């Protein structure tokens, strides 16, 4: 146990040196750090609870995306039957419970033809992939009835794309310049984790998360918006009772309009948008430019409908519904509503970032202001220093200068190695993580205590110093490993089951356990062996 070959010593010293170098950047001012080679620039990241910032867990409303997909499928089927020759349907309706569209034919004789038609509409989920997953599955319920179900593969694909797209839109909205260090990551099946360090105004962030920013231009139905129709709708108690193919949206200013449900001019048409002032009225507006395809579409639409009104609908609310005075062919225009400069800026930001494919709900939020974070860091620092000093002093008192120093060198090395490992891994130090380190300070000396007590015992049994130390190290190895592996099991469990800051605790605890075994069993043993070889003591100062 006490003999170390040359290469072993080199390896141990090399590992220590590397640990020291990885830990070093944490102690350097940032200007000096910038001059170091890239590998040694890494420092320990402070968690949001220490540096301040916002942590949010957002839930993506996937059910609405699926029902939207079903409505699209229904429209596709309706168009398909309309274009097909002599194929008449009685009803085509969405069955949300079963993720399906139900088709009923008028004539049972068309059964085979309709079946072929429906099957032809099913496409490959991912044309690039080798799997043969189709978007829909067609079942014949009876000669006249068919069920078109969206396949699980398709639903999974829709969900995956919705999450990915939501994350992209969020990034563009919160960080349009791409300068903030923030984390956006999927969590579970339907959630997104958002972490923004140092966020000053969480309310601003929340307001851009809460808006879907679904923009669409709908033609207003002239014939439907007469007094009689509105009166009927009011009497029926629900304004959603609208003619087929139409939709009712409330107006921002009160009231509402019945418009064409389908439109081709949506938020995807927008190339850019920016806030501005009305050229005459000098009040805030939002300017926009369409892409080429939509500019042409919009030009044709306005050409055909001069004198009619169209409604600009944002998130199911009509912002404005101007009358078309002439064909708009330039592909650009502006939206005027009751904007303030601030809300115009926000809307143009949202429009530039694109619409969220689904509504996002904040299901968990933890925000820490910079004041509290700094307080926590200060308290953690003081507690660590006092704890470290107390334990160090106690080791000297207990084991005397010689062995106390060995234990304390091991302890100091341990702390430095923990810092080095955390820096290298890019791990995040959280408030519970600080607790983990301080706890490690207390527990780290355990391995050394075990060894020293064993050495004392062996010496007491009459073994000469070298023999006692040798035996002490050998006999304490198994209990040290057993004891620490069990603690490690607890830490690893905590890591996999825990979340957020608790994970930070598990990481520091686990690293602390591994490093404390290494420093006690390897580093301290090397020091002891070197001392024995040089001094060849006749008795043990322990």
């Amino acid at each position, binding site marked *: 146990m006490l003999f170390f070959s040359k290469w072993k010593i080199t390896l141990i010293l090399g590992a220590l040196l590397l640990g020291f170098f990885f830990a070093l950047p944490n102690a350097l001012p940032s200007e000096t750090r910038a001059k170091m080679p890239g590998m040694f620039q890494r420092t320990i990241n402070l968690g949001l609870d220490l540096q301040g910032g916002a942590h949010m867990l957002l839930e993506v409303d996937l059910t609405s995306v699926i029902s939207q997909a079903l409505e699209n499928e229904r429209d596709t089927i309706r168009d398909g039957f309309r274009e097909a020759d002599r194929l008449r349907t009685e009803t085509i309706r969405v069955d949300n419970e079963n993720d399906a569209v139900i088709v009923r034919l008028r004539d049972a004789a068309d059964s085979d033809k309709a079946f072929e038609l429906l099957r032809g509409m099913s496409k490959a989920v991912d044309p690039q992939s080798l799997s043969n997953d189709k978007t829909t599955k067609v079942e014949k319920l009876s000669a006249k009835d068919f069920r078109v179900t969206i396949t699980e593969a398709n639903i999974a694909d829709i969900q995956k794309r919705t999450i990915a797209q939501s994350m992209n839109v969020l990034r563009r909205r919160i960080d349009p310049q791409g300068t903030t260090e923030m984390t956006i990551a999927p969590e579970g099946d339907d959630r997104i984790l958002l972490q923004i360090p140092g966020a000053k105004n969480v309310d601003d962030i929340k307001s851009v998360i809460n808006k879907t920013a679904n923009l669409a231009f709908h033609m207003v139905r002239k014939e439907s918006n007469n007094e009689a129709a509105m009166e009927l709708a009011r009497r029926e108690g629900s304004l959603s009772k609208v003619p087929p193919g139409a939709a009712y949206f409330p107006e921002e200013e009160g009231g509402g309009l019945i418009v064409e449900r389908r439109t081709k001019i949506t938020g995807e048409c927008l190339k850019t948008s920016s806030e501005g002032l009305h050229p005459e009225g000098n009040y805030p507006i939002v300017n926009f430019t369409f892409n080429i395809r939509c500019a042409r579409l919009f030009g044709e639409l306005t050409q055909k409908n001069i004198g009619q009104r169209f409604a600009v609908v944002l998130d199911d609310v009509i912002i404005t519904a101007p009358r078309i005075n002439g064909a708009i062919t330039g592909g650009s225009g502006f939206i005027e509503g009751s904007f303030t400069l601030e809300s115009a800026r926000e809307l143009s930001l949202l429009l530039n970032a694109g619409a969220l494919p689904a509504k996002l709900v904040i299901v968990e939020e933890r925000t820490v202001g910079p004041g509290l974070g700094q307080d926590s860091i200060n308290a953690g620092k003081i507690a660590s220093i006092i704890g470290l000093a107390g334990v160090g002093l106690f080791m000297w008192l207990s084991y005397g200068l010689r062995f106390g120093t060995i234990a304390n060198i091991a302890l100091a090395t341990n702390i430095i190695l923990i810092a080095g490992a955390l820096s290298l891994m890019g791990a995040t130090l959280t408030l519970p993580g600080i*607790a983990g380190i*301080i706890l490690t300070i207390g*527990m780290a000396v355990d391995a050394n205590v075990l060894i020293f007590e064993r050495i004392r015992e062996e010496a007491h049994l009459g073994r000469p110093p070298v023999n006692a130390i040798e035996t002490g190290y050998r006999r304490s190895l198994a209990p040290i490993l057993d004891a620490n592996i069990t603690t490690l099991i607890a830490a690893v469990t905590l890591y996999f089951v825990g979340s957020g800051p608790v994970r930070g605790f598990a990481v520091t605890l686990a690293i602390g356990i591994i490093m404390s075994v290494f420093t006690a069993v390897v580093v301290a043993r090397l020091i002891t062996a070197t001392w024995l070889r040089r001094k060849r003591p006749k008795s043990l100062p322990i």
Partner: protein
Amino acid sequence: MKDISLVKFFPMEPKVPFLSIRTLAALLSTIAIIASLALFSVRGLNYGIDFTGGTVIEIDTGTTPDLAKIRTVVADAGFPGASVQGIAPDASSTLDHDYVRIGIPLQPETEETGAQAQQIAMKATQDALVANIDGFDGPEDIRSQEAVGSAVSGELRTKGALAVGLALLMVLAYIWFRFEWQFGMGAVIALFHDVILTIGVFSLTQIEFNLSIIAAILTIVGYSLNDTVIVYDRIRENLRKYKKMPLPEVLNLSINDTLSRTILTSFTTLLALFALYTLGGSGLRGFSFAMIWGVFVGTYSSIFVASPLLLMLKLKRGVNTGNAEKAEARLT
């Protein structure tokens, strides 16, 4: 070199008759466990928002806060069940006056509000405070804000219980693999003892029970086991060394052999924990309290629960069954 190692004051071979008071210890532990379970079922735990859901906002009003007024404002905003308390800042804090902690219970998630209910409550409270409390101007005066919906708090509850259960199970498996089954059982019963007593003390004191306490309990599990394994290891060694010695004496000898280590390690760990408790800031006080308690209970249970259990579980001497050879073979 002059030396002053205090350790020399420890008797080299302490002969404390730990095992002779095992009946008393068993009685004490049983009473404590029953009391803990009774407390837990009657009084319950003071769960934090991690597990109940709801909203907690900590604000700084610039001066010593007028708690009565804040209470009225929050109640008038629609949250009469809210808790409002002033908290003294830590010694190392930049604040020189109390700050305020406002806790709003979980708001029902109706069709109208959905999972957003907690966010709506938080906004309403803040708006009311900005309008009515001088010195609170919104985001810049918020020290922290947390809102947890019912779905997430439910998940955290399940995960927390799962973590503790899973850790106990894996530890049982490891000890089983390394020792005889009696050791595995003994260790896990001792751990249950520690976990139950920790929950009991949290029920008694009504200190907030949150995610970091789960972390503390798992660490206590690790620490207590550490202690138990050290003693068990020595028992196994002494069983082989003194084949003729009666079991209770072997157990007592092993506990005494490892006594100085047990005391020293507990002492240094407590030293660090007391530093954390007194100086580590309010955020870690619950955690360090749990750990301090855990070190005491864990040390007690390794000596008075885990070891006597080996007697009760009728640990067989290797001589008769050949288990010692097996154990030795496993060890080497």
